[in-house]
């Protein structure tokens, strides 16, 4: 799945990284690389679903990053 949007950091529950896409959908990236851990960075990312229906973060839909490109 392709996602385009900006990187966000959510501090709740100890903190997690995600992407808010152009439709304002929230995606929690379970393996956000350190190179992308900059709030506001615009990215195009290829992701896959993860077997993690629930989490303590309770923010966004969890995905795993396969490939990305900084826009």
């Amino acid at each position, binding site marked *: 799945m392709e996602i385009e949007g900006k990187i966000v*950091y*959510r*501090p*709740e*529950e*100890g903190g997690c990284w995600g992407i808010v896409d152009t439709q304002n959908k*929230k995606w929690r990236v*379970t393996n956000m690389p350190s190179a992308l851990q900059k*709030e506001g960075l615009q990215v195009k990312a290829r992701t896959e679903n*993860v*077997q*993690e*229906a*629930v*989490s*303590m*973060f*309770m*923010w*966004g*839909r*969890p995905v795993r990053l396969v490939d990305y490109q900084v826009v």
Partner: protein
Amino acid sequence: MMSWIYILSYVALIGTAAVWLYGKARSMSVPFIGQGFWLSLITYLLSLWFGDAAWFIKLVLMFPLDIAVFVIALLLFNRFVSKSKVLFTVLAAVLLVVKFFVFDIAQKTYQKYQTSQTEQVSAKGELLADMAEGYAKAEFDALLDKYQASATVAFPRVNHPDRTQLDDYMTINLADETAGQWPDLMNELIENGLVDGVEANEVIQLSPEESNNAQPTAADYGLNDPGLQHLWGFKAMQMEELFKYLKDNNIQPKKVAKIAILDTGVDGDHEDIADNFISTNADYDQDKMGHGTHCAGIAAAVSNNGKGLASFSADNAFVKVTSIKVLSDWGGGTQQDVIAGIIQAADDGADVISMSLGGPSDDASQRAYTEAVQYANKAGAIVVVAAGNSDDNAAEYAPANAEGVITVSALDDQLRKAEFSNYITDVRMGIAAPGVNIYSTFPNNEYKFLSGTSMATPYVAGVLGLMKSLRPELTTEKAYQMLNNTGLSTPDEPQTGKLIQPAKLAAALQQAPLF
């Protein structure tokens, strides 16, 4: 600085226009006067735009007056340029005095009036200052001495200073004798370049009730747990009333209720949990992430042991807490794991099942969770679930939307909906508890502040544990009805539900007929 640019550019504007008129009257060509005029005009407009004055002042008073003075000055100049230069000079000087002296007084008077009308300054900290980078500390200290003021770091618990400027903020307190001089101190801080910004530390009144800003102390509760000073939520929930009620009425539990924390595990050896902890399975009694340990402390920390924080009774006689690990060491899990955990908790006799977890919902997941919750309800357990942290509708998150659960939103210390908290408008049993900057236990005898609906949820689980210990027959429906009836209305109640009030709840429970 900006005010000086404004004055100079305005004088230059009049000057260049006058020189141009003079040259025209004498049929002389003055070099660069056109460029000078336009440069002055642009500088003047920019300095006006970015000036410190209120927009009302700029648009209604400053700009029209500037135009009027400009036009009158040029008309006078044009009229007298070939006649009395002395008279022109006098009139121009009078105009500029009016502009920059008389008007300045009027402007300051207006701003002081505005300030007195809109700002009620906190008695605790009169000013909140964003200190300039590398500010002159000696000069700052001298200014504090002058106003008999003291300064403290405003936000000492900023965990990620690289992501915020809040760690630069200082709270400045003035002595009672000089408290009224805070606007003067504010001006001096700005004029001396000591701050990037400074504002009155305003008192925000949510209702006619007293502010909850005061920090509680252990003594306020008759307990010796040092961390009580960090628990703003205890004051909001009027916990001192609960402890007093239980003690004065010699309230005894009918049973020791068990609260199951379904999470990342719980550090069962933690100094402030161990005495209240029951092990379900040794594999669940470790917590690499810390999330489950934090939640367990909120629900059932050992009170009055001289360590950490406290929970819902002073003598620890009402509840015990256990751990069922359903999330991985990274904080994620599957629906299957969670449902298995609910079933295990119910089978092991949990009275309250607390789940600070969730994810986006679909019909199938909602149905499956509802089944599991019904199973737990039938076993006598009340299930409490976090609303979620996405500022979305909790009805779109599972298991927050499952039938038969009590869904918990988070409030901040102003008793407003936490900006991240999902809203409970469309779930059947929504309630609120403190969920921002919550101090609680962390693995290896540590303590930490965390925020989230995860933190609000075990507060509700803790008070439900107390309820179940007093009235073991209590059902979810009846428990929610009482939580809601005794809860405190808050400004965002339609989105959050009412804030739990344990003392009122305990009293109502004692007086309620048998269920």
